[in-house]
């Protein structure tokens, strides 16, 4: 059974890859069909994932773990919004209200905490790792912040020069990092396509 799973996964992956790189009519059609199936499977996976989330929280409540009250709140909210979405539809104003009045403000608050966290991490950076690269990293970050921030007197004189000079190095560095990541992604994908790495079917 495991070999069959691997064979199906490898064949599907190769067809999609070939359809992308070598656009023959038949391959393109097959690629489209397989991708549609994958989208349906992904949607079912979301439901399975939500069940997993509920199961974990129920387990916390059952074993009376610390902060399990939040788990109860999560389950009630999840079932409530899921039920409302099913009955009234996702475009309904009450369902939209759950998004606009709860989820958006909560995520905005976390974004605000993120800003504080980043400042705190920058302050602690020199204590954690005091080397030349750290000092350069901090100096460049501060100079870029000064060059891009709004001031009461308008743009800082020479800000375009700072941005252009820093941009020259940062875009070069970013390209280097992205090329490295692309090569890593290519090799990892090939290992999965050849069935060497099989993160499916319990192999």
């Amino acid at each position, binding site marked *: 059974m495991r070999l069959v799973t691997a064979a199906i996964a490898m064949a599907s992956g190769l067809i999609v*890859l070939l359809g992308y*790189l*070598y656009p023959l009519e038949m391959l393109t059609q097959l690629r489209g069909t397989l*991708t549609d199936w*994958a*989208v349906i*499977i*992904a949607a079912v*996976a*979301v*439901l*399975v*994932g*939500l069940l*997993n*989330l509920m199961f*974990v929280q129920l*387990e916390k409540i059952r074993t009376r773990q*610390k*902060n399990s009250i*939040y788990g109860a709140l999560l389950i009630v909210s999840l079932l409530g919004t899921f039920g409302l979405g099913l009955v009234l539809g996702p475009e309904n104003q009450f369902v939209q209200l759950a998004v606009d009045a709860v*989820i958006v403000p*909560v*995520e905005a608050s*976390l*974004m605000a*905490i*993120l800003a504080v*966290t*980043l400042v*705190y*991490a920058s302050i602690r*950076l020199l204590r954690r*790792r005091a080397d030349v690269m750290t000092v350069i*990293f901090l100096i460049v970050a501060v100079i870029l912040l000064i060059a891009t921030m709004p001031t009461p007197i308008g743009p800082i004189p020479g800000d375009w020069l700072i941005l252009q000079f820093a941009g020259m190095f940062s875009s070069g560095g*970013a390209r*280097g*990092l*992205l*090329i*490295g*990541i692309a*090569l*890593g*992604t*290519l*090799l*990892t*994908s*090939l*290992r*999965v396509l*050849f069935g*060497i*790495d099989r*993160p*499916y*079917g*319990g*192999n």
Partner: protein
Amino acid sequence: MLAFGIVILTALLLLAFIYLRRKSPGVFRRIEAYERLNRSVGLSVENGTRLHISLGRGNLFTARSGSALAALAMLRRLAERTSVSDRPPIVTSGDASLSILSQDTLQAGYRAAGAEDQYRISTGRLTGLTPFSFAAGTIPVTRDEAVSATVILGDFGAEVALLADAADREDTNLIAASDNLSAQSILYASAQDPLIGEELFASGAYLGAGVSHDASLQVQDILRWVLILAIVGGSFLKFVGFF
């Protein structure tokens, strides 16, 4: 056609180096973060604490899946090595398909170590479907589950700062890498030994996941040199007015 050629060339190189690596195992340069990960695994087994492995939000239907697949390969190895621990590792992810694959990988790791009865489905968790809900669902794992080391590897955005901060507050070892440039710069400021760029994809090789991972690293090195020569050569030819 060029893309097709690159894929074929890479595939052939990979297969050739897998064959060669079987005869002579590779020697790697020292990466402090992986040294620390290896130490943390041993320590967590000895002192009865957990590893928390966060795989990020890498959707398997996008180009971001590469880092998620690399993280799954690492997870498989970590699951095997910690299967004798009293407290199994907890794996969190922010994508439903990735969460299911993480459960499958954990189970496979336990089976390979002959400890399948130790596997619990609740150790592979989906903690949220948006970046910040994922972070909010993941932070309590670091805080409440007797975690001694946090491994953050995969596709993350700026929300990774909250996870790194939580690990720092709980004084756990943090090993972190991402394929996202914003997350990399944040982790550079937050982690003790950050993994930069393609070092993320070396996790399998450094944890002893097999010759295919060693061969991948070697092929990456070769392709990198080919690209460097192409860029320098192209610049020179442009400079002298060849094209």
